[in-house]
């Protein structure tokens, strides 16, 4: 379970204003909102990469804003993350990128690692790309390698920032279906940020919408689709006329 209580984060201006949010264990939570609403910042606060000025973030029952970097490592070993810009290690091959989280969790059997990497690459339709460097991949291919790396350890909590950005409609639906299937198999708790709302809502259990640093909606997928909140209604249905 992920519990966020009254989190306040500012850079030059406030970015998260008293965000309170609960994601139950085993839930696939979709986080939507217009650009610069603070979705990526919230995800980084969940991972302990950014520290909020106020408020608390609880993961696995631990208040992570109080932990130091060394204790955070133990928590992060149970979390997978896909960054919005992928953040692939550019000096490592695709295979080494995907294997990196496994090696750091103490898996040293090369045959196990190679099998798992091949399995991940097949899942994102990139079989045979093991020895390529990230610099030589297209935007969508990098995104898929990022997805493969985030899922390689079958973490209990996975945070995806735009898993389908830059992908064609067919591939993005395949990615969403893949992530949903694996989330259900593993019973993982997942938070997924995406601008591809139509496809995102086909896989989510619950949905939250952010606007200007505040969480203005939190409910089930059906509630989101039927919401009468003018902003949520406009955003979910992609209407041009409305308050946004």
């Amino acid at each position, binding site marked *: 379970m992920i519990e966020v209580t009254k989190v306040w984060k500012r850079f030059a201006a*406030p970015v998260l204003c*008293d965000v309170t949010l609960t994601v139950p264990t085993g839930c696939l939570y979709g986080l939507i909102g217009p650009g610069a609403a603070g979705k990526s910042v919230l995800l980084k606060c969940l991972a302990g990469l950014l520290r909020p*000025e106020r408020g608390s973030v609880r993961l696995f029952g631990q208040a992570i804003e109080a932990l130091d*970097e*060394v204790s955070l*490592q133990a928590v992060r070993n149970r979390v997978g993350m896909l960054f919005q810009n992928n953040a692939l*290690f550019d000096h490592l091959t695709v295979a080494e990128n995907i294997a*990196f*989280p496994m090696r750091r969790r103490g898996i040293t059997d090369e045959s196990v690692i190679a099998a798992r990497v091949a399995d991940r690459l097949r899942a994102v339709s990139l079989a045979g790309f093991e020895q390529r460097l990230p610099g030589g991949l297209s935007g969508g291919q990098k995104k898929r390698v990022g997805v493969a790396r985030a899922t390689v350890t079958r973490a209990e909590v996975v945070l995806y920032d735009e898993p389908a950005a830059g992908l064609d409609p067919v591939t993005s639906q395949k990615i969403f279906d893949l992530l949903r299937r694996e989330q259900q198999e593993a019973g993982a708790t997942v938070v997924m940020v995406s601008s591809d709302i139509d496809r995102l809502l086909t896989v989510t259990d619950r949905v939250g919408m952010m606007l200007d640093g505040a969480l203005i909606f939190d409910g089930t997928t059906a509630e989101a689709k039927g919401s009468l909140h003018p902003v949520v209604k406009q955003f979910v249905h992609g209407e041009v006329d409305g308050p946004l």
Partner: protein
Amino acid sequence: MSAEPHAMERPQGPAEVAARRVLADARELQGVFLRTLYWTAKGRREPGEVARQCFEVGYRSAFFLSVTMGFIGMILVFQSGLQLLRVVPDLTLLGATFLELLVRDLGPTIAAMMLATRVGAGIAAEIGSMVVTEQVDALRMCGVDPVDHLVVPRFIASVVMTAALVMFSGLVSFAAGGATAWFVFDVQPLTYINFSLLDRGDLITGLLKCVAYGAAIPIVSGWCGLTTRGGSEGVGSATTSAVVNSSLAVIMLDLVLTGAGFVVFV
């Protein structure tokens, strides 16, 4: 966006802001320093990475450093020879004095200043660009302390290679000075090569300086790289401040160690 509570907006004078920033920087630098020592003692690492960094720091700087130190040796011997001739027209101790100065201070310090520009800039640029592309965040998500993964291999390589480079380039410098003394002042090599002024204190002070500089440059530059903000512009300023700060660190350590060496070895 809701208004921010007043409690957070206590007005601060510019002096207070500056003092807070210096304190925060000092705390961060200390953090990088302590974590580097901790992971050097405790971390497990692939030997390949340290070897690669040794090559990066050592081999690639050797030519640049030897040329610089060679010229400096020539200039110093020439200038001090001219000065000496005005006071006492006897240059028999020229080589011995120069050697003592070279071992005790100039060799390590000038070489380290040169290394600070070459090695420091490289470390800060490499780590800084990993910060702005979020690769450092990705490392942290894999349960890796970026200090362990990025700073420590460079730290070990730098400590080892700085000592080696200082000895090698010091030798070049002494030889180039000897050639100058011979050709300009007609001091015979056998007179020039004179170890009589060199004692244990000089050697220990010189060696300590090598180690201290070799440790300071990657730590200061790694700290500059890890605290990079913004985009490629941030990487640029991180690189600049790495060079400036590691040169400053070298000079300050020089002062401290010279003072300490003087007190201990009179």
